[in-house]
């Protein structure tokens, strides 16, 4: 079975959803949808044994072979892990949504179509070996996320959040595309595997750092790293199943996946290590700090997600640093990669369950505002248990899965300083410190989430609904995940061998050639080392601060609103419409003269500039036709009549003077031996003058009093510029005659081959008769155009766009 087709399976299935919804409306559509991720999950599970042995699967579907663009599905340890997460959690989320979303009130078909679209997108991202198809799926995740966040599109917040998330993630995606293209140019291929194979050569390329930064921008925006995380809290406007799925377990992990996938290519660069580790850690501490300001349950979870993503990101950075360490096996360094993946799994599991609980609370009490909640422990005991398991795992407490990965995280951060790499010996000390602070806050917000909701005093009067435990169906999925948290703690090495190690081997191929070589064995006790005391410190300080939370939580309000990144985004958006509008109005005045001023100035500047820069000036005094006195006189007449136009105040005078100019031009034609032109010019000039008179009978006299001196002076300067430019160019062009004209041919053949005597006329009707044909077409159009103008006068109402 082709793996590529499997990727597309959900989106193909999505086409049938509206049909099912219509035909079998009495059954919740979710039940049909559920089959798909479940089946996929089972299928991908069957691949586990071979992948865990270090095998891989590949399948290819051509898209645009001419441009070397194809869909290549490549499954190795990393891809498979993500695929399992996507389909597994996807199945649970669909199950949850069946009870969460009412089949009568909601437009379920839309919801499931988006969800399936997203599933395809996500599978595509993690399985694509081809950069371009990776980008394709990447954008598809942004789009489906946009649609899902905007699912309740009549709400302002939903639309705002949808747009915000799309803007930021698509921006990252576009930058990432730039990076991909650069990689493609450098390596001559878009295949990730082939790029990894030639990673050492790439490092020397000029574009290398550019590609690195651009790709990281993609990863950071998607994974909500500082300073791009701001879209994630607003994305919580989506229905909760979506938040659980997209904004905690899968989509935001796409950025992590990307960093992990590209580690083999970019690990060479210290920039990569610094950026990924640094931004990751900073994000972790920053978001965990701000999580405590949140009042919305999902808001807290959103910030916690950001923080956890930062944690994993920093671990990935550290695992890239391993590239620079000799004999890495045997050092603690190997923990970084393992911890990253391990924590990623843990996070997906516990955060999924927490979101679902948050959704249950919302569903059953009608609010997510933590200030109104409290004391639900006795009313919703099962939910409480699930929430507690998830939160403790997040806080890093034993006996939950999170504890294990958290420990390894601290180990990795502490050991980073052991190596003399990239000045880690001087600045590196910051890493464990920041990590520690972040962990303390993580501890606090985990408790904050659980205990401020379930413990304390119950305030039924503030709740829109009477609180009670959720139906069993809705509890099914979170309970399953909570149990999984426990299981992971019990059998960490099984998880490690089957899931984590293959993935680690894919991230660090420069160390391991097969998953079995990953020398990590997860233990519960490492002895009383630095990490141990750090953990104890976290618990102690964290508990103390949580106890006093109500006292110092208010101090968050002191932080000025104007300095937040959210405000920055709002300002940017404001700038993009109102600001752009104001800016645009500065020059889009609607006044033709200003436009002409810009245009003519541009023409003068650019043509004269080119003229000067390319040294094009020339005057050739040879080959000139003789100057007769007579020509001078006519020229003076021409100039005189033109000046008359310029200074006349009467419109009739101006028209007559224009006629005079036309006639002198005709006289020039006579002098320069162009009888046909002279004839035509004369008649046309006469008719034009007549038309001027006809059309302008009703027009008022030219009044010039409103044209101020400055106005006129400005015009004169520009006009002079155009005149000078034309003169200079004409002089140079005349002097630059380099090649004899083709018109010799006409002179020689006109009588013998074209059977005519008047060369101009023969050119017009024969040699270049095609011109003439369309020239009379122009005349014809002008004719019908003028008739239409005069005869067809629609009122405003008739001009509306519809036939009555």
């Amino acid at each position: 079975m082709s793996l590529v087709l499997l990727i597309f399976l959900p989106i193909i299935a999505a086409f049938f959803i509206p049909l099912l919804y219509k035909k079998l409306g009495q059954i919740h559509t979710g039940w049909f949808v559920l089959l798909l991720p479940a089946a996929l999950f089972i299928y991908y599970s069957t691949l586990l044994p071979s992948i865990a042995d270090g095998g891989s699967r590949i399948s290819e579907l051509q898209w645009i072979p001419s441009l070397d663009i194809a869909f290549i599905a490549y499954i190795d340890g990393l891809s498979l892990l993500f695929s399992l997460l996507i389909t597994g959690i996807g199945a649970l989320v669909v199950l949850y949504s069946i009870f969460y979303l009412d089949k009568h009130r909601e437009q379920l078909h839309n919801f499931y179509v988006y969800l399936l679209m997203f599933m395809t997108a996500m599978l595509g991202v993690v399985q694509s070996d081809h950069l371009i198809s990776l980008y394709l799926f990447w954008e598809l995740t942004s789009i489906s996320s946009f649609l899902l966040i905007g699912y309740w599109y009549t709400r302002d917040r939903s639309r705002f959040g949808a747009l915000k998330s799309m803007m930021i993630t698509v921006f990252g995606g576009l930058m990432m595309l730039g990076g991909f293209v650069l990689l493609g140019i450098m390596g001559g291929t878009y295949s990730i595997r082939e790029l990894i194979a030639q990673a050492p050569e790439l490092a020397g390329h000029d574009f290398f750092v550019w590609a690195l930064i651009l790709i990281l921008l993609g990863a950071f925006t998607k994974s909500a790293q500082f300073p791009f995380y701001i879209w994630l809290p607003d994305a919580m406007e989506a229905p909760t199943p979506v938040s659980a799925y997209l904004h905690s377990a899968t989509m935001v992990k796409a950025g992590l996946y990307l960093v992990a996938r590209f580690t083999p290519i970019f690990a060479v660069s210290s920039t990569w290590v610094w950026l990924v580790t640094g931004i990751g850690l900073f994000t972790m501490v920053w978001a965990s700090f701000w999580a405590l300001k949140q009042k919305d349950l999902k808001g807290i979870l959103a910030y916690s997600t950001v923080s956890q993503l930062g944690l994993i990101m920093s671990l990935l950075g550290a695992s890239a640093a391993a590239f620079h360490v000799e004999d890495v096996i045997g050092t603690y360094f190997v923990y970084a990669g393992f911890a990253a993946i391990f924590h990623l799994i843990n996070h997906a599991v516990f955060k999924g369950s927490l979101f679902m609980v948050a959704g249950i609370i919302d569903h059953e009490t009608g609010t997510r505002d933590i200030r109104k909640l409290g004391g639900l422990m006795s009313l919703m005991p099962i939910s409480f248990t699930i929430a507690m398991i998830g939160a403790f795992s997040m806080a890093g407490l034993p006996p939950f899965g999170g504890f294990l990965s958290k420990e390894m995280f601290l180990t990795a951060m502490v050991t980073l300083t052991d190596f003399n790499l990239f000045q880690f010996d001087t600045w590196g000390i910051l890493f464990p410190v920041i990590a520690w602070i972040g962990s303390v806050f993580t501890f606090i917000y985990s408790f904050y989430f659980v205990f401020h909701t379930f413990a304390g005093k119950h305030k039924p009067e503030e709740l829109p609904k009477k609180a009670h435990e959720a139906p069993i169906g809705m509890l099914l999925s979170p309970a399953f995940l909570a149990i999984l948290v426990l299981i992971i703690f019990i059998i960490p090495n099984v998880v490690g061998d089957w899931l984590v190690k293959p993935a680690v081997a894919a991230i660090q191929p420069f160390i391991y050639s097969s998953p079995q070589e990953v020398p990590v064995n997860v233990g519960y006790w490492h002895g009383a080392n630095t990490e141990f005391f750090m953990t104890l410190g976290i618990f102690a300080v964290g508990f103390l601060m949580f106890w006093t939370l109500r006292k110092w939580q208010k101090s968050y309000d002191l932080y000025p609103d104007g300095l937040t990144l959210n405000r920055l985004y709002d300002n940017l958006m404001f700038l993009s419409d109102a600001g752009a509008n104001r800016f645009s109005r500065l020059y889009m005045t609607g006044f033709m003269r200003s436009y002409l001023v810009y245009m003519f100035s541009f023409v003068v500047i650019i043509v004269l500039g080119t003229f000067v820069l390319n040294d094009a000036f020339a005057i050739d005094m040879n080959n000139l036709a003789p100057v007769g006195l007579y020509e001078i006189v006519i020229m003076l007449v021409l100039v005189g009549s033109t000046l008359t136009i310029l200074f006349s105040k009467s419109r009739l005078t101006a028209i007559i003077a224009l006629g005079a100019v036309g006639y002198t031009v005709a006289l020039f034609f006579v002098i320069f031996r162009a009888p046909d032109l002279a004839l035509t010019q004369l008649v046309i000039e006469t008719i034009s003058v007549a038309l001027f008179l006809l059309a302008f009978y009703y027009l008022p006299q030219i009044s010039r009093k409103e044209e101020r001196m400055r106005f006129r002076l400005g015009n004169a300067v520009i006009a002079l510029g155009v005149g000078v430019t034309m003169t200079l160019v004409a002089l140079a062009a005349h002097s630059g005659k380099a090649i004899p004209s083709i018109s010799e041919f006409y002179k020689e053949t006109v009588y013998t081959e074209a059977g005519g005597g008047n060369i101009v006329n023969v050119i017009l009707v024969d040699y270049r008769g095609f011109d003439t044909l369309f020239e009379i077409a122009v005349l014809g159009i002008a004719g019908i155009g003028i008739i239409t103008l005069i005869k067809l006068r629609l009122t405003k109402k008739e001009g509306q766009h519809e036939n009555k």
Partner: protein
Amino acid sequence: MKTNDVMLKTATKVVTFIILMFAVHIFFAGHYTPGGGFIGGLLTTSAIVLLMLAFGIDTVKKILPINYVVLSAVGLLIAIATASASIVFDVPFFTHAYDYFDLPLFGETSLHSALLFDVGVYLVVVGVTMTIIQTIGEDE
């Protein structure tokens, strides 16, 4: 106010005739001496304009009940048809044919398909310029 231009009207009668003769002459002469369809057409127009000047637009319309749009369309079609004849013979578009004939009375004369094309040009020019002048003249 209405004035009657006896002088103008009388002169016009003679002059229009002269102009039309001249127009026809210049049209036919075009291939060998200055002139051609354009100028011929424009001169014809001026003759008609002169008539309008002298006798008023409605009178002229009665004398020459021509739909000028149709006239220009016909002219355009003639021009296209002349040029397109070559498509039938599968030679490049616009290939003209001509030959010298010994006609009685005229002596050696060349018959040229370009002349037919020029007829098209002539008609279009007359049609369009008259369309323009008439529609504007008729309007308010």
